[in-house]
C-alpha cells in the first residue's frame, strides 16, 4: 500500500485541500486504514470525476480505490458481474461487451469507478426507462466505521443510505451488478434540431419507451427567439439483424480509444464567452434539421467527452463549476426562467444537457427525481457567478427540485433539507452506524451532512 500527502481537487479543479492518500491493494489494507484513521476521518476516492469536493478530505485520509480493480466473475448466462469498487466502467464495458452484455446505466464518462458510481448513484440518458445505477446493484460489500465488512442488499436501510450516499456510510469494496444484453456495440442515433426551448421539451417529451436513450444539448448563449435552442439526440441499441452480413462477425467489438492523459496540452482559459458562442453556433448550424438512424459506436455516443482529454483546463485557472438541477414535470416555467437568466447573463456555459428523469431510485440522497434535469458547467472565475447560482438554488428549491450533490461545490447548507427530504433519516443512520464520524469529506463538512 502506498501512502503520500497530496493536494486534491474534484474534476472542476476548485478548492484544493491536502490529505493523506492511501492506495490499498487488498480489502484488509483498506480496513486497516479505516481502523487506524486519524481524528479527521477518511473517505474513499475513485478516478476523481466528481466535480466538487465529494472525494476530498482536508487534513484527513483519502482511500484511493483504483488499485482494487479486479473483475471477480461474470455470469454470462444470468447477466451479472462481481467486481471490486475500483474498476472503471470503461474497463467493465471493454470486458462485458464482447460477451454480449452492457451496463444498464452509463454516465457521460467511462472514467468513473463502480464505487464512485454507487456513491454518487449516477444516471445516464436512459434514466426514464432504466433508472439510476442503484436499480442495478444486486448487492455490495461495505467496509463500515468499525472496520467490519457488511453485505448490503437492496431493500435495507443501509442500501438506501449508501446508494447516492457520497461515501459517507462506508467504503464500498465490491459490488454485484445486473447487466442488460446487447447484440451489437453500435447505436442507432436520431438527431433533431429544435429552434427554442419549447421545441426541445416537446421533442424530449415525445420520446417513447422505444427510444431508451434521449438527451438534448442546449445552446445557453442563444438569445431572443432562439433562447434555449438545442439538438435532441435519441438512441437505441442496434439489433444484430439490422447489420449487413459482413459486419455481423465483429458486431460486439469495443474500441474505446486511448486513455486520456491527466496533463493534456490544452491551453488554459481557452474557452471564454466568444469562442463558446462560436462553437455553439457551429454546433447548432452544423446539425441537420433531422437525421435518423445514424450508426454510432458506443464510446462516441455515451462518452463523447472522454475523447477530449483535459478539456476542463480550457475553462481557466480558477477551474469550473458544474450545476445540475432537477424540477418536476409541470415545472417547465421554472426551467424556462432559469434558462432565460443564464441566457441574459451571457454565461459561457458548456456541455449544457437537458434530460428527462423517470421514477426515483432507492437511494436516500440520490439526485434523480421524476421531471426535467438540466446540467451545465461554467468557469468558476466568472464574476457574479456565486450570486447567480444562489438565485438558481432558490428557484429550484421553491419548485420542489434539487441540485446534484456529486457535482456540487458551492450549495448553501441551509437549502439541503428542503431539497433532500430524507436527509434526517440519512443523518440518523450515520449517527447510529458511525457515531464518531469516521467517514467524512470536504463536502460533508461544507454541507454539514
Amino acid at each position, binding site marked *: 500500500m502506498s501512502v503520500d*500527502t497530496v*493536494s486534491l481537487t474534484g474534476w*472542476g479543479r*476548485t*478548492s*484544493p*485541500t*491536502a*490529505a493523506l492518500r492511501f492506495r490499498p491493494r487488498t480489502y484488509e489494507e483498506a480496513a486497516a486504514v479505516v481502523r487506524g484513521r486519524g481524528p*479527521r476521518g477518511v473517505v474513499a476516492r475513485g478516478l476523481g470525476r466528481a466535480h*466538487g*469536493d465529494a472525494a476530498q*478530505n*482536508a*487534513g*484527513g485520509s483519502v482511500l484511493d480505490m483504483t488499485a482494487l480493480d479486479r473483475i471477480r466473475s461474470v455470469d454470462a448466462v444470468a447477466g451479472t458481474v462481481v467486481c471490486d469498487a475500483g474498476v472503471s466502467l470503461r474497463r467493465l464495458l471493454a470486458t462485458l461487451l464482447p460477451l454480449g452484455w452492457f451496463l444498464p446505466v452509463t454516465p457521460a464518462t467511462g472514467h468513473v469507478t463502480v464505487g464512485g458510481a454507487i456513491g454518487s448513484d449516477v444516471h445516464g440518458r436512459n434514466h426514464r426507462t432504466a433508472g439510476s445505477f442503484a436499480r442495478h446493484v444486486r448487492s455490495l460489500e461495505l467496509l463500515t466505521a468499525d472496520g467490519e465488512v457488511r453485505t448490503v442488499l437492496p431493500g435495507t436501510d443501509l442500501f438506501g443510505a449508501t446508494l447516492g450516499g457520497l461515501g459517507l456510510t462506508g467504503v464500498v469494496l465490491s459490488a454485484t451488478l445486473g447487466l442488460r444484453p446487447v447484440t451489437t456495440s453500435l447505436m442507432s442515433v436520431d438527431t433533431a434540431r429544435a429552434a427554442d426551448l419549447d421545441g426541445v421539451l416537446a421533442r424530449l417529451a415525445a420520446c417513447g419507451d422505444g427510444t431508451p436513450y434521449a438527451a438534448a444539448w442546449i445552446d445557453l448563449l442563444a438569445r431572443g427567439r432562439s433562447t434555449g435552442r438545442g439538438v435532441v439526440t435519441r438512441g437505441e441499441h442496434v439489433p444484430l439483424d439490422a447489420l449487413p452480413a459482413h459486419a455481423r462477425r465483429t458486431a460486439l467489438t469495443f474500441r474505446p480509444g486511448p486513455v486520456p492523459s491527466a496533463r493534456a496540452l490544452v491551453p488554459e482559459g481557452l474557452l471564454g464567452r466568444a469562442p463558446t458562442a462560436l462553437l455553439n453556433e457551429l454546433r447548432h448550424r452544423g446539425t441537420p434539421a433531422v437525421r435518423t438512424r445514424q450508426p454510432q459506436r458506443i464510446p462516441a455516443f455515451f462518452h463523447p467527452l472522454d475523447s477530449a482529454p483535459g478539456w476542463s483546463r480550457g475553462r481557466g*485557472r*480558477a*477551474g469550473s*463549476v458544474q450545476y445540475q438541477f432537477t424540477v418536476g414535470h409541470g415545472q417547465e416555467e421554472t426551467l424556462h426562467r432559469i434558462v432565460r437568466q443564464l441566457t441574459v447573463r451571457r454565461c459561457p456555459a458548456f456541455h449544457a444537457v437537458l434530460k428527462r428523469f423517470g421514477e426515483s431510485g432507492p437511494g436516500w440522497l440520490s439526485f434523480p427525481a421524476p421531471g426535467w434535469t438540466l446540467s451545465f458547467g461554467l468557469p*468558476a*472565475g466568472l*464574476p457574479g*457567478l*456565486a450570486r447567480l447560482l444562489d438565485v438558481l438554488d432558490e428557484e429550484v428549491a421553491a419548485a420542489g427540485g434539487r441540485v446534484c450533490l456529486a457535482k456540487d*461545490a*458551492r450549495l*448553501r447548507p441551509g437549502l439541503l433539507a428542503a431539497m433532500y427530504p430524507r436527509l434526517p433519516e440519512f443523518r440518523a443512520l450515520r449517527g447510529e452506524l458511525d457515531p464518531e464520524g469516521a467517514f467524512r469529506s*470536504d*463536502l460533508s*463538512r*461544507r454541507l454539514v451532512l
Partner: protein
Amino acid sequence: MKDAFGAPQSLLVLGGTSEIGLATARRLIARRTRTVRLAGRPSPALERAAAELRELGADVRTVPFDALDSASHEEVLGKIFTEGDIDMVLLAFGVLGDQARDEEEPLSAVRVAQTNYTGAVSAGLVCAGALQAQGHGSLVVLSAAAGERARRADFIYGSSKAGLDVFAQGLGDALHGTGVHVMVVRPGFVRSRMTAGREEAPLATTPGAVADAIVTGLRRRSETVWVPGALRVVMSALRHVPRPLFRRLPVR
C-alpha cells in the same frame, strides 16, 4: 469549508477592529460565512464590531489577542482552532505609527516594528501550522504598497510591512501543495481611521474596495493582490526609479 468560489464558512480576523477586516467580514457574511472570531485587545470598539456583525446573522465571538504578546499567540490562537475548522484567517492588525515621533523615540518605532512584523510573524506561523494540520484554508495577510519602496514619509511603517510582505510570500511558497493558500494584499493609501488627518496619496482607496479585492482574490486563488489594481504597474515602475530621482519625486 470554502466553496468553489473561495468563500469561507468560518473566519478569524486578527485585529478585530480593523476597518478592512470588518468590511471583509461583512462581505463574506453576505456569502457563506457563518462563524466569525474577532481577535483583538478587549475594548468597547471590539464588542461594538462583534455586535454589528452579529446583526448580519453570523455567530460572532471576540477573542482577547495582543499582537505584541508573541508568547501568548500559540495558546490563544491554538484554542480557536481546537473549537472547529477556520477556513480563512485575515491578518489585519497593524499600526501606522507617527514617523516624526518614531524617529525621535526609537522605542515607539520598535513598537511599530513589533506589531506589524514580529507580532505578525508569530501569529502567522501559529495560524499557518493550524491551517496545515486541517489541510485547507486561506491566510490573507494585509501588507502595504509602502513596503515596496522606502519613502521618506513612512519608512519605519514601510520597512515593517516590507518584512511582513517577504515573510508572507515565503510562507505561501512553503505551504504550496498543503491545501493552504496564502494571499498577500497590498493596498495603497486607504482612507480610514488609521490614516485620518494625513495627506492623501495618489490612487487612494477605501476599506470597502480592499475588502472587494480580497473577495475577488479568494475566488481566483490569487497570491498577490494590489488595491487598486493599477498600483501593480505604478509600483513596479516606481521600484526601478533611481534613488536620486526618487528622492525628488513628490509622491515619496
